[in-house]
């Protein structure tokens, strides 16, 4: 059951990411990135992180990607054109990313036994514990960093307003 869930949504995430890479128009890239984030939310849920699955859908697919789509439509961005620099990046970028992937997956697969495996049924029996635990840590031990994030968001909003304002 969980293996089928992983395969379906893992393949959906990879397909969305490859579609993101291949599309030329920014709005198509943004929409395929939404597919990636939605399937990642399902994978978070299958790892027993229900709060993060909800936060992923609300924050990433709901807020950040809407902001991206809004800016793409505001600036009326068309298809990107190929330039001389993009050809050099193409020949350097694909092998570099493939090398990073080979190194990472080699390390992960050789230590596969040490990592163990996941089972969703043990989590579903006490599913409420996840959110309770997170709120315990977040509002007790990490209360100061949690409050500092609100200042960070406030400063970011003010900075965005100042930067995007029309010059008088």
């Amino acid at each position: 059951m969980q293996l089928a869930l992983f395969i379906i949504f893992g393949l959906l995430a990879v397909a969305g990411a490859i579609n993101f890479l291949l599309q030329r128009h920014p709005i198509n890239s943004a929409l395929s990135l939404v597919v990636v984030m939605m399937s990642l939310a399902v994978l978070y849920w299958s790892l027993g992180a229900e709060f993060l699955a909800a936060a992923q859908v609300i924050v990433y697919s709901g807020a950040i990607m809407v902001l991206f789509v809004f800016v793409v439509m505001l600036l009326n961005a068309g298809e990107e054109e190929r330039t001389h620099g993009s050809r050099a990046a193409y020949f350097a970028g694909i092998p570099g990313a493939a090398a990073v992937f080979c190194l990472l997956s080699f390390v992960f697969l050789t230590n596969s036994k040490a990592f163990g495996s996941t089972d969703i049924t043990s989590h579903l029996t006490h599913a409420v514990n996840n959110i309770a635990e997170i709120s315990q840590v977040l509002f007790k031990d990490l209360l100061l960093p949690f409050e500092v994030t609100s200042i960070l968001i406030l400063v970011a909003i003010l900075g965005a307003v100042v930067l995007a304002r029309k010059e008088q």
Partner: protein
Amino acid sequence: MTVPISYYLVLAAVLFSIGAASFLIKRNIITIFMSIELMLNAVNLTFVAFAHMWHQITGQIFVFFVMVVAAAEAAVGLAIIIAIFRTRQTLNVDQVNLLKN
């Protein structure tokens, strides 16, 4: 049926390298920004997988903070993109060469 944690980590590696490749290949400044978000998501998946592996909640807290910082970064970055577009009338990174020479 159980899934090995390393499968989740390999999936995160796939997503991270696709994000890194599109960061290098794409010429549109908005798409480059979106590939940064893709790489952040891949790292978040490894955080959640390791949190599940060690039965610790700390990894999930880290993912929460990464999400907050990504939201703030997206707001400021898109404002900077709008400001650049207003002065240069382009979104192509090859034509933004103000600091060259």
